[in-house]
C-alpha cells in the first residue's frame, strides 16, 4: 500500500451562489464518498478545505495576493488515501463529487522522504 494525495480544484465562486439545500446535498455527497473510502480502510487523513485568500511568494520579494478567486481551477482542498497502485487510487477518486460540479481531482503518489 502506498499513500496518495488527492487535490481538489474547482471554481470557488460557484459555491457562493448555492442555496443552503444545495450546499447540504453537496456535503452529503462528500461525506458519503469519504465514508465509502474509509469503509474500505483506505482513508489516511480526511484532510481539509483551503480558504480562498492567501498569498504567493516569488523571487525578488514579490508577494501577490492569491489570485485564485478569478481562476476556475482553484485549489480548494486535499485528502490523503492509501491504495495498491495509482490505478486503484484513480478508481477510488472517480466517485469524488467534485467531478459532478465541474471540478477536478489531481491524484499524486507520495514518495516518503
Amino acid at each position, binding site marked *: 500500500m502506498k499513500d496518495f494525495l488527492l487535490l481538489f480544484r474547482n471554481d470557488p465562486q460557484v459555491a457562493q451562489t448555492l442555496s443552503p439545500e444545495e450546499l447540504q446535498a453537496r456535503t452529503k455527497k462528500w461525506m458519503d464518498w469519504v*465514508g465509502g473510502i474509509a*469503509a474500505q480502510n483506505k482513508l489516511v487523513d480526511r484532510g481539509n478545505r483551503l480558504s480562498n485568500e492567501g498569498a504567493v511568494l516569488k523571487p525578488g520579494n514579490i508577494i501577490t495576493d492569491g489570485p485564485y478567486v478569478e481562476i476556475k481551477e482553484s485549489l480548494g482542498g486535499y485528502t490523503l488515501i492509501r491504495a495498491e497502485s495509482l490505478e486503484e487510487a484513480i478508481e477510488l477518486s472517480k466517485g469524488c463529487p467534485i467531478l459532478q460540479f465541474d471540478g477536478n481531482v489531481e491524484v499524486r503518489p507520495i514518495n516518503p522522504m
Partner: protein
Amino acid sequence: MTQTDGLLPHLFRTEYSKITAVLCKLFGIEHVEIAEDIASDTFLLASETWGIKGLPENPAAWLYTVAKNKAKDYLKRNTLFMQKIMHQLDSNELDDRELEINLSDQNITDSQLQMMFAICHPSISAEAQICLSLRVLCGFGINEIAAAFLTSKETINKRLFRAKEKLREENVKIEFPSEGAIGERLETVARTLYLLFNEGYYSHSQESTLQKEVCYEAMRLTYFLLENKKTNLPFINALMSLMCFHASRFEARTDGDGQTILYQDQDENLWDRELISRGNYFLNTAWQGNKITKYHIEAGIASWHTKKEDSAEKWEHILQLYNQLLIIEYSPVAALNRTYALSKANGKAEAVIEAEKLNLAGNQLYHLLLGELYMGTDDLMAVDHLQKALQLATAKSDKTLITNKILAISLLSKG
C-alpha cells in the same frame, strides 16, 4: 441458609474488588497475588462462618475486619516481605508492627480508581487488561472469566499470570496519573471498559446472566470515573451513554431459550426507558466538550436506535454518523453497519456496489449483510452469501438464525 446463598456472590463482586484494591495499593502491584489471596481467604471464612452462625449485622464491616486481621497476620508471618513493604511504605510503625489498613470509603474509592489506571496500563495488551479487570476490579472467578471468553481455565490463568508479570516488569505504580498524563491514560482505561462491555454484550457465551453481569460491571467502573472530578470528562460521559443505550435492550434481545432476537423483531415495550433517559442525560453532558470522539459518535448512533420507527431522517443521520465514525477510526463492524445504513438511506443498489468493495470475504457478518442486500432482487446471490455466512458461523444461535433466513427465501421463491 438460602439467605447467604444469594448474598455472598453479590457481596463477593462488590467487596472482593474493594479489599483487593486497598491491600494492593498498600503492598504494591507486584504483590497483587497476596492481596487476592487474603481477599479470597476472607470470603472463604465468611462462607463457612455465615453458613453456620448466620449473617452478621453488617456483612461488609465484618469482611473488612477479617481482611485487616488476615493482612496483619500475613505481615507478621512474613518478616522478609514485611521489611520490604515497610521499607516501601516508609512507615514509623516498624517497631510495634502495627500497620494501618485504611478501609474508609474514600480510600476504597481512591484505591479502586488507581487500580483501574494501573491495570489499564498501555504496556499491557488489551486482552490481558480485560482479563485482569474482570478478576481484580470486578471480582469474577476464573471459571466465570473462562466462560465469558469461551476458553479454558488454563488459558485464563496463563493470561493473568503473564499480565501480572508484565505489571511487575514495567514497575507499574498504583497511583493517580499526573495532571498532564491523565487524558492519555484515561483513553486506555476507556478503551478497556468499552471492550469489557462489548465482551459481555456481543459474547456468544450461552450464559446470558453472566454476559449481563460483565456489562453491568463495565458500567459500574465507568460510573466510578464519572464520580471523580478529574476523570469526569466528556468522552467518559459519551462512553457511559453508549453503554446505557445498549443495556436498555437487554430484556428484549433474547427469548426464553436464549435465542437472539434481532433488533427489528424486538418488543419495544421491553426496552428499559430509565436507562434510555440516563443515556440521553450522559450524551447531553458529553456534547459539552469540544472534542468529538468515537464514543460520542457511537452513542449518537445508539441514541437513534432507541427510536424504533424507520424514517428517512433516522437512517440519513445514522449513515452520516457512521461516515464520521469511520473517518475517526476504521473497524470492520463499523464498515458493515455503515453499508447497511447506506442501503436504508440511499437504496440497496448503491449499497451492494459499496459492499462488494469492503474486502471482508472471511467475515460472517459481511456475507450476512450481502445476503440481506441481495434479498428480493437476486435471491440466488442472497442464498449464496447466506450459505457462506453459515459456513463461517460458529455460535449455535447464529447458525439457527441464518438457516431460518435461507428457509424463508426458498419458501418465498417457491410461493
